[in-house]
Protein backbone atom coordinates (compact mmCIF):
# COMPACT_ATOMS: atom_id res chain seq x y z
CA UNK A 1 0.00 0.00 0.00
CA UNK A 2 1.28 3.47 -0.88
CA UNK A 3 1.76 5.57 2.25
CA UNK A 4 -0.29 8.80 2.29
CA UNK A 5 2.72 10.76 3.46
CA UNK A 6 6.31 9.65 3.14
CA UNK A 7 9.21 11.91 4.10
CA UNK A 8 12.82 10.81 3.64
CA UNK A 9 15.76 12.70 5.09
CA UNK A 10 13.95 16.05 4.88
CA UNK A 11 16.16 19.03 5.75
CA UNK A 12 15.19 22.68 5.86
CA UNK A 13 17.02 25.82 6.91
CA UNK A 14 15.83 29.40 7.33
CA UNK A 15 19.04 31.28 6.67
CA UNK A 16 21.62 29.93 9.14
CA UNK A 17 18.96 28.26 11.34
CA UNK A 18 18.54 24.57 10.65
CA UNK A 19 14.87 23.86 11.33
CA UNK A 20 14.63 20.29 10.06
CA UNK A 21 17.68 18.03 10.28
CA UNK A 22 16.78 14.88 8.40
CA UNK A 23 13.22 13.91 9.18
CA UNK A 24 11.72 10.55 8.19
CA UNK A 25 8.01 10.13 8.53
CA UNK A 26 5.48 7.65 7.14
CA UNK A 27 1.73 8.10 7.53
CA UNK A 28 -0.54 5.36 6.18
CA UNK A 29 -4.01 6.02 4.71
CA UNK A 30 -6.71 6.47 7.41
CA UNK A 31 -4.01 6.96 10.03
CA UNK A 32 -4.18 9.85 12.50
CA UNK A 33 -0.65 10.98 13.20
CA UNK A 34 -0.04 13.48 15.98
CA UNK A 35 3.13 15.55 16.14
CA UNK A 36 4.16 16.99 19.50
CA UNK A 37 7.22 18.83 20.71
CA UNK A 38 8.47 22.09 22.20
CA UNK A 39 8.08 25.31 20.22
CA UNK A 40 10.82 25.79 17.68
CA UNK A 41 11.27 22.03 17.31
CA UNK A 42 10.27 22.20 13.63
CA UNK A 43 6.90 20.45 13.85
CA UNK A 44 4.95 23.23 12.12
CA UNK A 45 7.63 23.55 9.45
CA UNK A 46 7.43 19.81 8.80
CA UNK A 47 3.68 20.09 8.37
CA UNK A 48 4.05 23.06 6.00
CA UNK A 49 6.61 21.13 3.97
CA UNK A 50 4.05 18.37 3.37
CA UNK A 51 1.88 20.63 1.19
CA UNK A 52 4.88 22.61 -0.04
CA UNK A 53 4.03 25.88 1.70
CA UNK A 54 7.71 25.63 2.60
CA UNK A 55 10.18 24.26 0.10
CA UNK A 56 12.57 21.62 1.38
CA UNK A 57 16.34 21.93 0.95
CA UNK A 58 17.30 18.25 0.70
CA UNK A 59 15.47 14.95 0.95
CA UNK A 60 12.26 13.81 -0.66
CA UNK A 61 8.61 14.11 0.33
CA UNK A 62 5.78 12.18 -1.29
CA UNK A 63 2.05 12.52 -0.76
CA UNK A 64 0.03 9.54 -1.96
CA UNK A 65 3.01 8.45 -4.04
CA UNK A 66 3.48 11.81 -5.73
CA UNK A 67 6.62 13.85 -5.14
CA UNK A 68 5.46 17.20 -3.72
CA UNK A 69 6.39 20.34 -5.62
CA UNK A 70 8.81 18.68 -8.05
CA UNK A 71 9.01 16.34 -11.00
CA UNK A 72 11.90 13.89 -10.93
CA UNK A 73 13.46 12.94 -14.19
CA UNK A 74 16.67 10.97 -14.19
CA UNK A 75 18.90 12.48 -11.53
CA UNK A 76 17.32 15.92 -11.72
CA UNK A 77 14.44 17.63 -9.96
CA UNK A 78 12.28 20.10 -11.88
CA UNK A 79 10.16 22.57 -9.97
CA UNK A 80 6.47 22.20 -10.72
CA UNK A 81 4.53 24.99 -12.37
CA UNK A 82 2.18 27.02 -10.19
CA UNK A 83 -0.90 25.32 -11.65
CA UNK A 84 0.54 21.80 -11.20
CA UNK A 85 1.40 22.56 -7.58
CA UNK A 86 -2.17 23.81 -7.16
CA UNK A 87 -3.47 20.50 -8.52
CA UNK A 88 -1.38 18.59 -5.94
CA UNK A 89 -2.47 20.88 -3.12
CA UNK A 90 -6.19 20.70 -3.79
CA UNK A 91 -6.16 17.12 -2.47
CA UNK A 92 -4.53 18.20 0.79
CA UNK A 93 -6.63 20.18 3.25
CA UNK A 94 -4.92 22.46 5.71
CA UNK A 95 -6.17 24.06 8.91
CA UNK A 96 -4.13 26.90 10.38
CA UNK A 97 -3.54 28.01 13.94
CA UNK A 98 -4.94 31.47 13.15
CA UNK A 99 -7.84 30.13 10.99
CA UNK A 100 -6.98 32.40 8.00
CA UNK A 101 -10.60 32.58 6.88
CA UNK A 102 -11.29 35.05 4.08
CA UNK A 103 -12.68 38.03 6.03
CA UNK A 104 -14.52 39.51 3.04
CA UNK A 105 -16.66 36.42 2.59
CA UNK A 106 -19.38 34.89 4.75
CA UNK A 107 -18.94 31.48 6.35
CA UNK A 108 -20.82 29.87 3.45
CA UNK A 109 -18.86 31.80 0.81
CA UNK A 110 -15.59 30.79 2.49
CA UNK A 111 -16.53 27.12 2.09
CA UNK A 112 -17.78 27.63 -1.51
CA UNK A 113 -14.74 29.59 -2.68
CA UNK A 114 -12.28 26.82 -3.55
CA UNK A 115 -14.74 24.41 -5.25
CA UNK A 116 -15.95 27.27 -7.48
CA UNK A 117 -12.59 28.91 -8.22
CA UNK A 118 -10.26 25.91 -8.23
CA UNK A 119 -12.47 23.03 -9.39
CA UNK A 120 -14.80 25.17 -11.50
CA UNK A 121 -17.95 23.79 -9.89
CA UNK A 122 -21.31 25.44 -10.46
CA UNK A 123 -22.25 27.90 -7.73
CA UNK A 124 -25.53 26.13 -6.96
CA UNK A 125 -23.79 22.76 -6.47
CA UNK A 126 -21.05 24.34 -4.39
CA UNK A 127 -23.58 26.19 -2.24
CA UNK A 128 -25.51 22.99 -1.46
CA UNK A 129 -22.32 21.16 -0.62
CA UNK A 130 -21.08 24.05 1.51
CA UNK A 131 -24.36 24.10 3.44
CA UNK A 132 -23.99 20.37 4.13
CA UNK A 133 -20.44 20.84 5.36
CA UNK A 134 -21.45 23.69 7.65
CA UNK A 135 -24.14 21.43 9.05
CA UNK A 136 -21.55 18.73 9.62
CA UNK A 137 -19.44 21.13 11.74
CA UNK A 138 -22.61 22.34 13.49
CA UNK A 139 -22.77 25.85 12.01
CA UNK A 140 -25.82 25.80 9.74
CA UNK A 141 -27.24 28.85 11.51
CA UNK A 142 -24.04 30.89 10.98
CA UNK A 143 -23.84 30.44 7.19
CA UNK A 144 -24.36 34.10 6.30
CA UNK A 145 -22.20 35.58 9.04
CA UNK A 146 -18.82 37.17 8.34
CA UNK A 147 -15.82 35.62 10.15
CA UNK A 148 -15.23 38.66 12.39
CA UNK A 149 -18.61 38.00 14.02
CA UNK A 150 -17.84 34.36 14.78
CA UNK A 151 -16.08 33.05 17.90
CA UNK A 152 -12.64 31.52 17.49
CA UNK A 153 -14.02 28.01 17.79
CA UNK A 154 -16.68 28.72 15.16
CA UNK A 155 -14.08 30.25 12.82
CA UNK A 156 -11.90 27.18 13.13
CA UNK A 157 -14.86 24.89 12.39
CA UNK A 158 -15.62 26.95 9.28
CA UNK A 159 -11.95 26.63 8.33
CA UNK A 160 -12.21 22.84 8.65
CA UNK A 161 -15.37 22.85 6.49
CA UNK A 162 -13.55 25.02 3.93
CA UNK A 163 -10.71 22.51 3.72
CA UNK A 164 -13.14 19.57 3.48
CA UNK A 165 -14.97 21.22 0.59
CA UNK A 166 -12.12 20.19 -1.72
CA UNK A 167 -12.71 16.54 -0.72
CA UNK A 168 -9.09 16.09 0.38
CA UNK A 169 -7.40 12.74 0.84
CA UNK A 170 -5.23 14.15 3.60
CA UNK A 171 -5.84 16.81 6.26
CA UNK A 172 -3.07 18.78 7.91
CA UNK A 173 -3.77 20.56 11.20
CA UNK A 174 -1.29 23.19 12.39
CA UNK A 175 -1.99 23.66 16.12
CA UNK A 176 -5.70 24.08 15.38
CA UNK A 177 -6.69 24.83 18.98
CA UNK A 178 -3.72 26.91 20.17
CA UNK A 179 -5.33 30.28 19.42
CA UNK A 180 -8.62 29.38 21.10
CA UNK A 181 -10.04 30.24 24.49
CA UNK A 182 -9.94 27.08 26.63
CA UNK A 183 -13.72 26.59 26.65
CA UNK A 184 -13.82 26.63 22.83
CA UNK A 185 -11.18 23.93 22.32
CA UNK A 186 -13.63 21.08 22.81
CA UNK A 187 -15.94 21.96 19.93
CA UNK A 188 -13.04 21.94 17.45
CA UNK A 189 -11.62 18.69 18.79
CA UNK A 190 -15.09 17.11 18.50
CA UNK A 191 -15.18 17.92 14.78
CA UNK A 192 -11.69 16.50 14.33
CA UNK A 193 -12.63 13.35 16.26
CA UNK A 194 -15.58 12.90 13.89
CA UNK A 195 -13.28 13.24 10.89
CA UNK A 196 -10.91 10.61 12.27
CA UNK A 197 -13.82 8.21 12.82
CA UNK A 198 -14.84 8.70 9.18
CA UNK A 199 -11.42 7.42 8.15
CA UNK A 200 -9.71 10.66 7.15
CA UNK A 201 -5.92 10.58 7.05
CA UNK A 202 -4.70 13.33 9.36
CA UNK A 203 -1.43 14.83 10.47
CA UNK A 204 -2.05 16.92 13.58
CA UNK A 205 0.51 19.23 15.17
CA UNK A 206 -0.92 19.75 18.63
CA UNK A 207 -0.39 20.41 22.30
CA UNK A 208 -3.59 18.54 23.21
CA UNK A 209 -2.13 15.39 24.74
CA UNK A 210 -5.58 14.08 25.64
CA UNK A 211 -6.70 14.31 22.02
CA UNK A 212 -3.48 12.64 20.81
CA UNK A 213 -3.90 9.79 23.24
CA UNK A 214 -7.58 9.24 22.46
CA UNK A 215 -7.75 9.80 18.69
CA UNK A 216 -4.18 9.35 17.45
CA UNK A 217 -3.04 6.11 15.86
CA UNK A 218 0.59 7.18 16.00
CA UNK A 219 2.55 9.92 17.66
CA UNK A 220 5.94 11.47 16.99
CA UNK A 221 7.89 13.66 19.39
CA UNK A 222 10.09 16.25 17.70
CA UNK A 223 12.91 18.26 19.18
CA UNK A 224 15.55 20.43 17.55
CA UNK A 225 14.56 19.54 13.98
CA UNK A 226 14.56 15.78 14.50
CA UNK A 227 12.02 13.11 15.32
CA UNK A 228 13.28 11.92 18.67
CA UNK A 229 10.74 9.25 19.39
CA UNK A 230 7.72 7.72 17.70
CA UNK A 231 5.22 5.02 18.42
CA UNK A 232 1.62 4.66 19.50
CA UNK A 233 0.39 7.58 21.63
CA UNK A 234 -0.01 5.26 24.58
CA UNK A 235 3.61 4.07 24.38
CA UNK A 236 5.16 7.49 23.93
CA UNK A 237 3.01 9.38 26.41
CA UNK A 238 2.97 6.84 29.24
CA UNK A 239 6.31 5.19 28.81
CA UNK A 240 8.73 7.48 26.95
CA UNK A 241 12.16 5.93 26.31
CA UNK A 242 14.14 9.04 25.44
CA UNK A 243 15.29 11.46 28.12
CA UNK A 244 14.21 14.52 26.08
CA UNK A 245 10.71 13.13 25.67
CA UNK A 246 10.52 12.47 29.39
CA UNK A 247 11.59 16.03 30.20
CA UNK A 248 9.08 17.54 27.75
CA UNK A 249 6.21 15.40 28.95
CA UNK A 250 6.99 16.10 32.60
CA UNK A 251 6.48 19.80 31.82
CA UNK A 252 3.26 19.55 29.84
CA UNK A 253 1.35 16.68 31.41
Amino acid at each position, binding site marked *: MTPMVEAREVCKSFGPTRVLRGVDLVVQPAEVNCVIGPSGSGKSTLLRCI*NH*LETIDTGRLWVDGELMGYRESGEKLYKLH*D*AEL*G*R*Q*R*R*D*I*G*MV*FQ*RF*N*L*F*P*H*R*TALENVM*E*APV*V*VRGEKKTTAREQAAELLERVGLSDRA*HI*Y*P*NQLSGGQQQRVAIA*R*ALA*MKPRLMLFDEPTSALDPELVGEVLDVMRGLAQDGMTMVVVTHEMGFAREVGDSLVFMDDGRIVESGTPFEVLTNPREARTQIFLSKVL
Partner: protein
Amino acid sequence: MTEPTIGQRTSRTEPRDAVPVRHPGRWVAIAVLAVLAAMLVNTVLTNENFRWDVVGEYLLSEPVLNGLKNTLLLTVLSMVIGIAGGIGLAVMRLSPNPVLSSVAALYIWVFRGTPLIAQLLFWNFLSALYPFVSLGVPFGPEFVVFDTNQLINQFAACLLGLGLNEAAYMSEIVRGGIQSVDHGQTEAAGALGMTRTQTLRRVVLPQAMRVIIPPTGNETISMLKTTSLVVVIGYFELLTSVQRIYSTNFQTIPLLIVAAAWYLALTSILSVGQVFVERRFGRGVASGPPGPSLFQMPSFLAQRSSEGTR
Protein backbone atom coordinates in the same frame (compact mmCIF):
# COMPACT_ATOMS: atom_id res chain seq x y z
CA MET B 1 -29.55 69.69 20.13
CA THR B 2 -27.39 71.33 22.77
CA GLU B 3 -24.11 69.79 21.72
CA PRO B 4 -24.43 68.82 18.07
CA THR B 5 -20.85 67.58 17.71
CA ILE B 6 -21.32 64.75 20.22
CA GLY B 7 -22.62 61.60 18.51
CA GLN B 8 -25.74 59.90 19.83
CA ARG B 9 -23.80 56.68 20.23
CA THR B 10 -22.11 57.83 23.43
CA SER B 11 -25.14 59.43 25.04
CA ARG B 12 -27.19 56.28 24.61
CA THR B 13 -24.88 54.22 26.80
CA GLU B 14 -24.82 56.69 29.70
CA PRO B 15 -27.30 56.44 32.57
CA ARG B 16 -30.01 59.06 32.22
CA ASP B 17 -29.45 60.80 35.55
CA ALA B 18 -25.71 61.46 34.95
CA VAL B 19 -24.80 65.14 34.74
CA PRO B 20 -22.68 65.57 31.60
CA VAL B 21 -19.25 67.15 31.88
CA ARG B 22 -19.44 70.89 31.11
CA HIS B 23 -17.33 72.17 28.25
CA PRO B 24 -17.41 76.00 28.50
CA GLY B 25 -14.52 76.27 25.99
CA ARG B 26 -16.63 74.62 23.32
CA TRP B 27 -19.42 77.12 23.82
CA VAL B 28 -16.98 80.03 23.41
CA ALA B 29 -15.62 78.44 20.23
CA ILE B 30 -19.11 77.89 18.84
CA ALA B 31 -20.02 81.53 19.58
CA VAL B 32 -16.89 82.85 17.83
CA LEU B 33 -17.51 80.63 14.81
CA ALA B 34 -21.15 81.72 14.66
CA VAL B 35 -20.19 85.38 14.55
CA LEU B 36 -17.59 84.76 11.85
CA ALA B 37 -20.07 82.73 9.81
CA ALA B 38 -22.65 85.50 10.06
CA MET B 39 -20.07 88.05 8.89
CA LEU B 40 -19.13 85.85 5.94
CA VAL B 41 -22.73 85.29 4.84
CA ASN B 42 -23.43 89.01 5.22
CA THR B 43 -20.50 90.11 3.06
CA VAL B 44 -21.10 87.46 0.40
CA LEU B 45 -24.71 88.59 0.05
CA THR B 46 -24.23 92.35 0.30
CA ASN B 47 -20.90 92.96 -1.48
CA GLU B 48 -21.96 93.75 -5.01
CA ASN B 49 -18.52 93.01 -6.43
CA PHE B 50 -19.34 89.31 -6.21
CA ARG B 51 -21.71 89.93 -9.13
CA TRP B 52 -23.96 86.93 -8.47
CA ASP B 53 -25.93 87.91 -11.57
CA VAL B 54 -22.83 87.23 -13.69
CA VAL B 55 -22.26 83.93 -11.88
CA GLY B 56 -25.83 82.91 -12.65
CA GLU B 57 -25.49 83.99 -16.25
CA TYR B 58 -22.40 81.85 -16.93
CA LEU B 59 -22.99 78.85 -14.64
CA LEU B 60 -24.85 76.91 -17.34
CA SER B 61 -23.50 78.71 -20.40
CA GLU B 62 -22.27 76.68 -23.32
CA PRO B 63 -18.50 77.36 -23.11
CA VAL B 64 -18.51 76.52 -19.40
CA LEU B 65 -20.44 73.28 -19.98
CA ASN B 66 -18.07 72.34 -22.80
CA GLY B 67 -15.12 72.87 -20.51
CA LEU B 68 -16.88 70.84 -17.80
CA LYS B 69 -17.44 68.00 -20.27
CA ASN B 70 -13.71 67.92 -21.09
CA THR B 71 -12.78 68.02 -17.41
CA LEU B 72 -15.01 65.02 -16.72
CA LEU B 73 -13.83 63.10 -19.76
CA LEU B 74 -10.16 63.69 -19.01
CA THR B 75 -10.59 62.83 -15.32
CA VAL B 76 -12.48 59.58 -15.93
CA LEU B 77 -10.27 58.32 -18.76
CA SER B 78 -7.01 59.32 -17.07
CA MET B 79 -8.06 57.59 -13.87
CA VAL B 80 -9.04 54.45 -15.81
CA ILE B 81 -5.60 54.40 -17.42
CA GLY B 82 -4.00 55.26 -14.08
CA ILE B 83 -5.76 52.53 -12.08
CA ALA B 84 -5.33 49.80 -14.70
CA GLY B 85 -1.70 50.77 -15.24
CA GLY B 86 -1.17 51.11 -11.49
CA ILE B 87 -2.42 47.57 -10.79
CA GLY B 88 -0.20 46.21 -13.55
CA LEU B 89 2.85 48.09 -12.29
CA ALA B 90 2.21 47.09 -8.67
CA VAL B 91 1.97 43.41 -9.63
CA MET B 92 5.20 43.77 -11.64
CA ARG B 93 6.88 45.59 -8.74
CA LEU B 94 6.01 42.73 -6.36
CA SER B 95 6.97 40.03 -8.86
CA PRO B 96 9.72 37.61 -7.81
CA ASN B 97 11.23 38.22 -11.27
CA PRO B 98 13.95 40.89 -10.79
CA VAL B 99 13.62 42.17 -14.38
CA LEU B 100 9.88 42.87 -14.08
CA SER B 101 10.32 44.42 -10.65
CA SER B 102 13.16 46.69 -11.79
CA VAL B 103 11.33 47.83 -14.91
CA ALA B 104 8.35 48.85 -12.76
CA ALA B 105 10.65 50.63 -10.32
CA LEU B 106 12.29 52.50 -13.20
CA TYR B 107 8.93 53.54 -14.62
CA ILE B 108 7.76 54.83 -11.24
CA TRP B 109 11.05 56.67 -10.75
CA VAL B 110 10.81 58.45 -14.11
CA PHE B 111 7.11 59.33 -14.05
CA ARG B 112 7.02 60.48 -10.43
CA GLY B 113 10.34 62.23 -10.69
CA THR B 114 9.62 64.57 -13.60
CA PRO B 115 7.06 67.42 -13.67
CA LEU B 116 3.66 66.59 -15.10
CA ILE B 117 3.76 69.72 -17.27
CA ALA B 118 7.00 68.50 -18.83
CA GLN B 119 5.40 65.09 -19.49
CA LEU B 120 2.34 66.69 -21.13
CA LEU B 121 4.56 68.83 -23.36
CA PHE B 122 6.71 65.80 -24.17
CA TRP B 123 3.76 63.76 -25.46
CA ASN B 124 2.45 66.76 -27.38
CA PHE B 125 5.79 67.35 -29.09
CA LEU B 126 6.62 63.68 -29.57
CA SER B 127 6.62 64.27 -33.32
CA ALA B 128 9.72 66.43 -32.95
CA LEU B 129 11.48 63.33 -31.64
CA TYR B 130 9.75 60.73 -33.81
CA PRO B 131 7.95 62.25 -36.83
CA PHE B 132 6.64 58.80 -37.80
CA VAL B 133 5.51 55.79 -35.79
CA SER B 134 5.40 52.41 -37.50
CA LEU B 135 4.23 48.89 -36.75
CA GLY B 136 6.54 46.09 -37.85
CA VAL B 137 9.21 43.62 -36.85
CA PRO B 138 11.76 45.22 -34.50
CA PHE B 139 14.87 46.08 -36.55
CA GLY B 140 13.04 44.47 -39.53
CA PRO B 141 10.41 45.42 -42.09
CA GLU B 142 7.65 47.94 -41.31
CA PHE B 143 4.02 47.17 -42.09
CA VAL B 144 2.14 50.40 -41.28
CA VAL B 145 3.51 53.89 -40.82
CA PHE B 146 1.63 56.66 -38.97
CA ASP B 147 2.28 60.36 -38.86
CA THR B 148 2.88 60.98 -35.15
CA ASN B 149 0.99 64.26 -35.19
CA GLN B 150 -2.12 62.52 -36.52
CA LEU B 151 -1.77 59.50 -34.24
CA ILE B 152 -1.34 61.58 -31.07
CA ASN B 153 -3.67 64.56 -31.26
CA GLN B 154 -4.01 67.02 -28.40
CA PHE B 155 -6.61 64.93 -26.60
CA ALA B 156 -4.47 61.77 -26.82
CA ALA B 157 -1.45 63.71 -25.57
CA CYS B 158 -3.51 64.87 -22.57
CA LEU B 159 -4.57 61.30 -21.79
CA LEU B 160 -1.04 59.94 -22.16
CA GLY B 161 0.41 62.68 -19.97
CA LEU B 162 -2.21 62.49 -17.21
CA GLY B 163 -2.85 58.73 -17.34
CA LEU B 164 0.74 57.48 -17.47
CA ASN B 165 1.76 59.87 -14.70
CA GLU B 166 -1.18 58.75 -12.58
CA ALA B 167 -0.29 55.09 -13.12
CA ALA B 168 3.02 55.68 -11.35
CA TYR B 169 1.31 57.12 -8.28
CA MET B 170 -1.50 54.56 -8.32
CA SER B 171 0.98 51.68 -8.50
CA GLU B 172 2.46 52.70 -5.15
CA ILE B 173 -1.03 52.95 -3.65
CA VAL B 174 -1.97 49.51 -4.99
CA ARG B 175 1.33 48.02 -3.80
CA GLY B 176 0.70 49.36 -0.30
CA GLY B 177 -2.77 47.79 -0.38
CA ILE B 178 -1.53 44.41 -1.56
CA GLN B 179 1.20 44.34 1.05
CA SER B 180 -1.27 45.21 3.81
CA VAL B 181 -3.10 41.89 3.34
CA ASP B 182 -2.06 39.27 5.90
CA HIS B 183 0.30 36.67 4.47
CA GLY B 184 -1.85 33.93 6.01
CA GLN B 185 -4.51 34.76 3.39
CA THR B 186 -2.14 33.89 0.56
CA GLU B 187 -1.14 30.69 2.34
CA ALA B 188 -4.74 29.66 2.93
CA ALA B 189 -5.58 30.25 -0.73
CA GLY B 190 -2.47 28.37 -1.85
CA ALA B 191 -3.29 25.44 0.45
CA LEU B 192 -6.72 25.21 -1.18
CA GLY B 193 -5.02 24.81 -4.57
CA MET B 194 -5.45 28.32 -5.96
CA THR B 195 -2.83 29.59 -8.38
CA ARG B 196 -1.05 32.88 -7.78
CA THR B 197 -3.34 34.69 -10.21
CA GLN B 198 -6.50 33.26 -8.62
CA THR B 199 -5.21 34.20 -5.18
CA LEU B 200 -4.51 37.76 -6.27
CA ARG B 201 -7.87 38.20 -7.98
CA ARG B 202 -10.14 36.42 -5.50
CA VAL B 203 -8.43 36.86 -2.13
CA VAL B 204 -5.75 39.55 -2.03
CA LEU B 205 -7.09 42.37 -4.22
CA PRO B 206 -10.63 42.41 -2.71
CA GLN B 207 -9.06 42.84 0.73
CA ALA B 208 -6.45 45.32 -0.51
CA MET B 209 -9.25 47.49 -1.92
CA ARG B 210 -10.13 48.64 1.58
CA VAL B 211 -6.69 50.22 1.88
CA ILE B 212 -6.53 51.32 -1.77
CA ILE B 213 -9.84 53.18 -2.01
CA PRO B 214 -9.32 56.21 0.28
CA PRO B 215 -6.08 57.37 -1.40
CA THR B 216 -7.61 56.58 -4.81
CA GLY B 217 -10.47 58.92 -3.91
CA ASN B 218 -7.83 61.53 -3.14
CA GLU B 219 -6.16 60.92 -6.48
CA THR B 220 -9.44 61.21 -8.39
CA ILE B 221 -10.39 64.49 -6.72
CA SER B 222 -6.88 65.78 -7.29
CA MET B 223 -7.04 64.67 -10.93
CA LEU B 224 -10.26 66.65 -11.37
CA LYS B 225 -8.26 69.82 -10.82
CA THR B 226 -4.95 68.65 -12.28
CA THR B 227 -6.64 68.33 -15.67
CA SER B 228 -6.42 72.15 -15.87
CA LEU B 229 -2.72 71.70 -16.66
CA VAL B 230 -3.64 70.64 -20.21
CA VAL B 231 -3.75 74.34 -20.99
CA VAL B 232 0.03 74.12 -21.55
CA ILE B 233 -0.55 72.14 -24.73
CA GLY B 234 -3.42 74.29 -25.89
CA TYR B 235 -6.27 72.01 -24.89
CA PHE B 236 -9.17 73.33 -22.81
CA GLU B 237 -11.30 72.26 -19.87
CA LEU B 238 -13.39 73.95 -17.18
CA LEU B 239 -10.78 76.33 -15.76
CA THR B 240 -9.43 77.25 -19.21
CA SER B 241 -12.96 77.98 -20.41
CA VAL B 242 -13.69 80.46 -17.63
CA GLN B 243 -10.26 82.05 -18.07
CA ARG B 244 -11.06 82.65 -21.74
CA ILE B 245 -14.34 84.32 -20.75
CA TYR B 246 -12.95 86.62 -18.05
CA SER B 247 -10.03 87.63 -20.26
CA THR B 248 -12.59 89.30 -22.51
CA ASN B 249 -15.22 90.55 -20.03
CA PHE B 250 -12.90 91.13 -17.02
CA GLN B 251 -15.39 89.54 -14.58
CA THR B 252 -12.58 87.51 -13.02
CA ILE B 253 -14.03 86.78 -9.56
CA PRO B 254 -17.56 85.79 -10.67
CA LEU B 255 -16.19 83.42 -13.29
CA LEU B 256 -13.75 81.83 -10.85
CA ILE B 257 -16.76 81.31 -8.57
CA VAL B 258 -18.49 79.53 -11.47
CA ALA B 259 -15.52 77.18 -11.87
CA ALA B 260 -15.17 76.65 -8.11
CA ALA B 261 -18.88 75.82 -7.81
CA TRP B 262 -18.59 73.13 -10.46
CA TYR B 263 -15.43 71.66 -8.94
CA LEU B 264 -17.10 71.55 -5.51
CA ALA B 265 -20.20 69.90 -6.97
CA LEU B 266 -18.14 67.21 -8.70
CA THR B 267 -16.01 66.66 -5.60
CA SER B 268 -19.17 66.20 -3.52
CA ILE B 269 -20.50 63.58 -5.92
CA LEU B 270 -17.17 61.74 -5.87
CA SER B 271 -17.05 61.83 -2.05
CA VAL B 272 -20.50 60.28 -1.76
CA GLY B 273 -19.52 57.68 -4.35
CA GLN B 274 -16.43 56.87 -2.31
CA VAL B 275 -18.53 56.19 0.79
CA PHE B 276 -20.54 53.58 -1.13
CA VAL B 277 -17.48 51.91 -2.63
CA GLU B 278 -15.83 51.81 0.80
CA ARG B 279 -18.85 50.07 2.30
CA ARG B 280 -18.89 47.56 -0.52
CA PHE B 281 -15.29 46.56 0.14
CA GLY B 282 -15.51 46.97 3.93
CA ARG B 283 -17.66 43.84 4.21
CA GLY B 284 -16.66 41.63 7.08
CA VAL B 285 -14.53 44.31 8.70
CA ALA B 286 -15.87 46.05 11.77
CA SER B 287 -15.35 49.78 11.45
CA GLY B 288 -17.85 52.49 12.22
CA PRO B 289 -18.09 55.91 10.63
CA PRO B 290 -14.86 57.96 10.80
CA GLY B 291 -16.28 60.20 13.53
CA PRO B 292 -19.22 62.38 14.50
CA SER B 293 -20.03 65.01 11.91
CA LEU B 294 -22.69 67.59 11.16
CA PHE B 295 -22.66 66.44 7.54
CA GLN B 296 -24.32 63.06 7.78
CA MET B 297 -25.52 61.11 4.80
CA PRO B 298 -29.28 61.29 4.36
CA SER B 299 -30.71 58.48 6.47
CA PHE B 300 -32.34 56.62 3.57
CA LEU B 301 -28.97 56.41 1.79
CA ALA B 302 -27.16 55.25 4.92
CA GLN B 303 -29.86 52.64 5.49
CA ARG B 304 -29.60 51.16 2.04
CA SER B 305 -25.84 50.95 1.94
CA SER B 306 -25.58 49.34 5.35
CA GLU B 307 -28.09 46.71 4.26
CA GLY B 308 -25.75 46.03 1.38
CA THR B 309 -23.06 45.00 3.82
CA ARG B 310 -25.12 42.23 5.36
